[in-house]
């Protein structure tokens, strides 16, 4: 129990960040992390004894998040893409940064989930490519190609959206 706590407790802030970046909803993201921690506790003994708890725990969270996103898609729930106060952003940074970060978060939301996950795991959560491959359960070559597409597409989306001249896009309504 002590090794579980020592290995997993420091990960919780990053788990919350990854969950919120994927779900863009604070309460839903924390619910997801809660489920993830419960599973982590109950399955702790099942993990391979290679000591890499981080990729293992992130994989649990990632699978829960993908299930949740699929449920949302089935129910036709639409996530507001243009909330002025994006819940993914915890607190407002400086005005200019806020605009740019808001654009970036919205553009990120337009990426396919598999590209978004790779980019978040590698660029934000600092997982190695090998760790990301374990979390996503894909070969490392797939991680690299998804990362490549994600960066290129995000770049294009941001280029298409100069913050100064950006019109308010309409939120999709079911």
């Amino acid at each position: 129990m002590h090794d579980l706590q020592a290995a997993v407790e420091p990960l919780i802030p990053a788990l919350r960040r990854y969950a919120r970046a994927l779900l863009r909803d604070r309460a839903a993201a924390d619910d997801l992390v809660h489920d993830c921690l419960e599973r982590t506790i109950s399955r702790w003994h099942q993990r391979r004894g290679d000591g890499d708890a981080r990729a293992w725990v992130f994989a649990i969270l990632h699978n829960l998040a993908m299930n949740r996103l699929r449920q949302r898609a089935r129910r036709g729930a639409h996530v507001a893409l243009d909330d002025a106060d994006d819940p993914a952003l915890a607190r407002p940074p400086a005005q200019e940064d806020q605009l740019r970060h808001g654009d970036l978060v919205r553009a990120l939301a337009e990426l396919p989930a598999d590209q978004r996950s790779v980019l978040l795991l590698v660029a934000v959560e600092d997982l190695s490519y090998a760790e990301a491959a374990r979390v996503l359960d894909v070969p490392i070559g797939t991680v690299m190609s998804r990362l490549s597409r994600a960066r290129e597409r995000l770049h294009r989306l941001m280029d298409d959206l100069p913050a100064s001249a950006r019109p308010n896009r309409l939120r999709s309504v079911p």
Partner: protein
Amino acid sequence: MTSGRPITEADLHAYVDQALDAPRRAEVQAYLDQHPEIARRVAAEARQRGDLRAAFAAIAEEPVPATLSLAQLIDRRSRIVGGGDPDGAAGGAGGNAPRGIDGHYRPRRPAWQLAIAAVVLVGLGGLGGWAARGATRPGNGIAALAQEATDSYRVYAPDRVHPVELRAVDQGALIAWVSDRLAHPVSVPDLTKAGFRFMGGRVVVTAHGPAGLLMYDDDRGTRMVMLVRPMAVERDTAMSAHASGSVRGFSWARRGVGYSVVAEASADRLHPLADEVRRQTDAGVPG
């Protein structure tokens, strides 16, 4: 290009992600110096990475909410597994304690509980050896029902993986299943006012045919089991109390259906629950 290895797209990503060792990083840097177009793209991707990190950085700096306290989650899990008393001093190191499929988070149990558990395990399988307060034989009546409920409680209540086969969300399917197997309409008593939530249930085997098991728990993780089955004898019997070790129960029969409510709880706590179950099931029995 001291290594002679060509620069790959993967190298460029690893450069952006600062994942290269120093020699390779120097090689990529030299390559970018000679290819300004690619260098611009790589620089843009590095900026994008920095922006992404900045956009989400604040989330990881928030204080972690109490609901995500790992220590509490572990502790709660232990309580649920233990079905109650988390205050035991023994470390659960004894080999005879009931345990879940994973043995890692066995609850701490006092030594006397380990001893009882050992006795119970030895005694399992021998329904005939049980005697209610040493007075009546179990037979086929209420005493047998009480024993079956106690046995079911001991098997399923500590189970952390599949304590129930159908969960509360599938209540409709569960009721249909149990009612069909018992050939008797079964309902799920609502005990929320008494602080117990319905978890779900399953059909269980008894020496007297199938029985329906419904499980509840409260906020402290105390689990309570209700067993229901048709009665061949003692078909209308007043409620009686029974105890086996720390597991207590109340059992009765009404119009050919036997009920037993069992938990590791005090009689003071359990008796009102049994009364409430009886009140609700009586209301559901056709006059």
